[in-house]
């Protein structure tokens, strides 16, 4: 039977963690009960992107976008929308409803209209477990074109012409990288997909693998053909179980159709892909450490050169490309480099996927053309800062990047501009920091992460990150001096210049960029012993303002009972007993509790 409606259920990890997992079963139950099960197609898709409003259910042909859907809502959607054809207005994502109660297509709302989706072209639109849906969207045609109509060198030239640069953060031209491996003659070469996404706050690669695994496989195959490798590996961390599952399904489906294996499209090209699981060490995202891990060794980086393109996995020429880079490649091959190169700026072509997080309304996954300004991403797509707070900075590149202050928000997003601003593109984590955040504390958070993740092979990184963290702790405790800040800066520069691999070289970036843009904030911690963001516990205390309505909520919820006051009277805090947990401030209905 041909279905009259398609129900797309977002099954990205974010929606699943918000309860999307049981929605499918719920639909099954109610549609069967209503006797219309075979009229409706249920599709579990990858991440739709607007994670803040998940779980999502999208109903076609109308294209109605239901947000924040719960199990109990499915009954209503089935009975009202699918059975009777009435919109369930209260569940419709409000931005898609006009004043006249008309539905606008969800790709016309602000969150999507500013985006250009190349890497995410299929994410949220197709069932990742069905290869046919990928093929219907012109999947594997780029590969066909490469294998049957182009020589490997022509594929490389096409990549060079597209201007695609590594999306893992480094920004090295992909075509050039491939050319190195192409030129290194060897009987065996390898291509690896780096899916060891480890930055706190980054989830682009996971969403791509979960939502459109075939685009990554196809990219990997095209790369293999270009450099002369017939074996590909996908190195993915075991912390991504759904992504691994989708990849396995995708690989077996591609094999079944003969899109993986011997003599693909009758071209004589053979290719095989194997999944290798990482234990989730941040350093394994670094090329040489990743190779060591695949070889079965401890994940530690080594000196370069030799670069992997010359001597990589088991000593053979190896290319390592990031997930997002690979997902772009089939689109470039199929649509042509010229079309891709038209998007973006002179120096940075195409688009970039960012995972928006932190103090932002529409946390989620966005893909924007290079050259979009940070302000556009934050305010027009991201919907701005919650509670109308002031934007303070944006951290790109996670623990390897830096903070860009509010004054530079009109900067265009490019690899170069971000580096000039003291940050980096990174893999695409974008953490929005509002006025109530403390930069010292954020530095401390990132350093805490790098200390944990340093592999320990080289001294500057192993010892340097630890010492930097200690210095930050001293500063945030209010016991530091101005000399400590200078020492911290000096050490950061030393670690940056003397560490063995990217992890150590980039670990001081948050400190250096925040010192550059927010030095006064560090200084007030040591001179005035004040934390301007009201975060560093040793330097703050809580106070109740006259606005207190005496609702007693704070007193009831205080874990140490240090708040006193009678009903409808101004309350007060005994600061000597207060443990500064912040419960009272968060719970106050009239925002009468402040930190000083």
């Amino acid at each position, binding site marked *: 039977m041909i279905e009259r409606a398609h129900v797309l259920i977002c099954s990205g990890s974010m929606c699943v963690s918000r309860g999307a997992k049981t929605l499918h079963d719920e639909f099954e139950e109610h549609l069967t009960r209503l006797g219309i099960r075979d009229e409706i197609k249920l599709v579990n898709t990858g991440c739709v992107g607007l994670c803040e409003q998940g779980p999502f259910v999208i109903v076609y042909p109308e294209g109605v976008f239901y947000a924040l859907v719960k199990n109990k809502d499915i009954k209503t959607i089935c009975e009202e929308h699918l059975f009777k054809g009435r919109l369930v207005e209260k569940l419709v994502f409000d931005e898609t409803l006009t004043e006249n109660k008309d539905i606008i297509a969800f790709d016309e709302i602000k969150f999507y209209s500013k985006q250009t989706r190349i890497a995410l072209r299929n994410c949220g639109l197709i069932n990742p477990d069905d290869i046919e849906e990928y093929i219907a*969207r012109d999947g594997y045609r780029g590969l066909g074109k490469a294998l049957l109509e182009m020589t490997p060198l022509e594929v490389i030239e096409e990549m060079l012409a597209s201007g695609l640069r590594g999306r893992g953060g480094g920004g090295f031209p992909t075509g050039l990288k491939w050319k190195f491996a192409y030129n290194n003659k060897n009987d065996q070469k390898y291509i690896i997909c780096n899916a060891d996404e480890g930055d706190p706050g980054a989830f682009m690669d996971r969403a791509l693998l979960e939502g459109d695994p075939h685009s990554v496989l196809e990219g990997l195959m095209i790369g293999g053909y270009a450099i002369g490798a017939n074996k590909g590996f996908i190195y993915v961390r075991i912390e991504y179980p759904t992504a691994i599952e989708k990849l396995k399904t995708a690989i077996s489906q591609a094999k079944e159709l003969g899109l993986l294996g011997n003599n693909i499209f009758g071209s004589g090209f053979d290719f095989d892909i194997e999944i290798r699981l990482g234990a989730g060490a941040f350093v394994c995202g670094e090329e040489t450490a990743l190779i060591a891990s695949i070889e079965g060794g401890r994940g530690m980086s080594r000196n370069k050169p030799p670069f992997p393109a010359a001597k990589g996995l088991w000593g053979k020429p190896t290319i390592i490309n990031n997930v997002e880079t690979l997902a772009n490649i089939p689109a470039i091959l199929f649509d042509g480099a010229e079309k891709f190169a038209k998007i973006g700026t002179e120096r940075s072509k195409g688009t970039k996927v960012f995972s928006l997080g932190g103090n932002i309304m529409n946390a989620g996954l966005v893909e924007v053309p290079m050259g979009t300004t940070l302000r556009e991403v934050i305010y027009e797509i991201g919907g701005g800062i919650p509670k109308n707070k002031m934007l303070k900075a944006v951290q790109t590149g996670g623990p390897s990047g830096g903070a860009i202050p509010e004054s530079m928000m009109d900067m265009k997003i490019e690899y170069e501009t971000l580096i000039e601003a003291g940050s980096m593109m990174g893999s695409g984590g974008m953490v929005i920091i509002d006025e109530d955040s403390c930069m010292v504390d954020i530095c401390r958070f990132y350093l805490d992460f790098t200390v944990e993740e340093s592999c320990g092979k080289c001294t500057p990184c192993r010892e340097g990150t630890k010492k930097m963290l200690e210095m930050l702790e001293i500063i945030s405790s209010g016991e530091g001096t101005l000399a400590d800040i200078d020492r911290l800066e000096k050490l950061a520069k030393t670690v940056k210049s003397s560490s063995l691999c990217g992890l150590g070289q980039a670990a001081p970036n948050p400190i250096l960029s925040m010192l550059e843009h927010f030095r006064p904030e560090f200084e007030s911690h040591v001179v005035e012993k004040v934390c301007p963001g009201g975060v560093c516990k040793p330097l703050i205390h809580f106070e109740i303002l006259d606005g207190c309505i005496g609702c007693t909520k704070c007193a009831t919820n205080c874990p140490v009972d240090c708040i006193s006051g009678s009903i409808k009277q101004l309350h007060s805090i005994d600061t000597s007993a207060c443990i500064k947990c912040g419960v009272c401030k968060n719970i106050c209905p009239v925002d009468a509790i402040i930190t000083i």
Partner: protein
Amino acid sequence: MKSLDDLKKIRDAAQKKVSMRGKNDGTRILVGMATCGISAGARPVMNKFVEELSNRSLDSVTVTPVGCIGECAIEPIVEVLEGEKRTTYCRVDVRVAERIVKEHIVGGKVVQDYVIGKFRI
């Protein structure tokens, strides 16, 4: 997968499965599916529309069940919306559904026999 043609075959077949998920600005067929419509046999009619449209690869035409259109006596009622133009059919059965697709949707000619107003009980 022996050739690009094999891939194209799969693609063409698979596109039917996903073509619904795009912008649908085309013609809409509304089938009255309130209790009265359903009891008068609207469900097989709706399914017939879906089937006929799919057979003819009329991807831009969508079929939507709607609530009570009001004239319960002459259900099943079907409306065809083409932009501002609205044509209302009544007493539609699977045979009429096929005619509506063939003569109205494809041929552009309203099936006069079943249009409300023309219909004689």
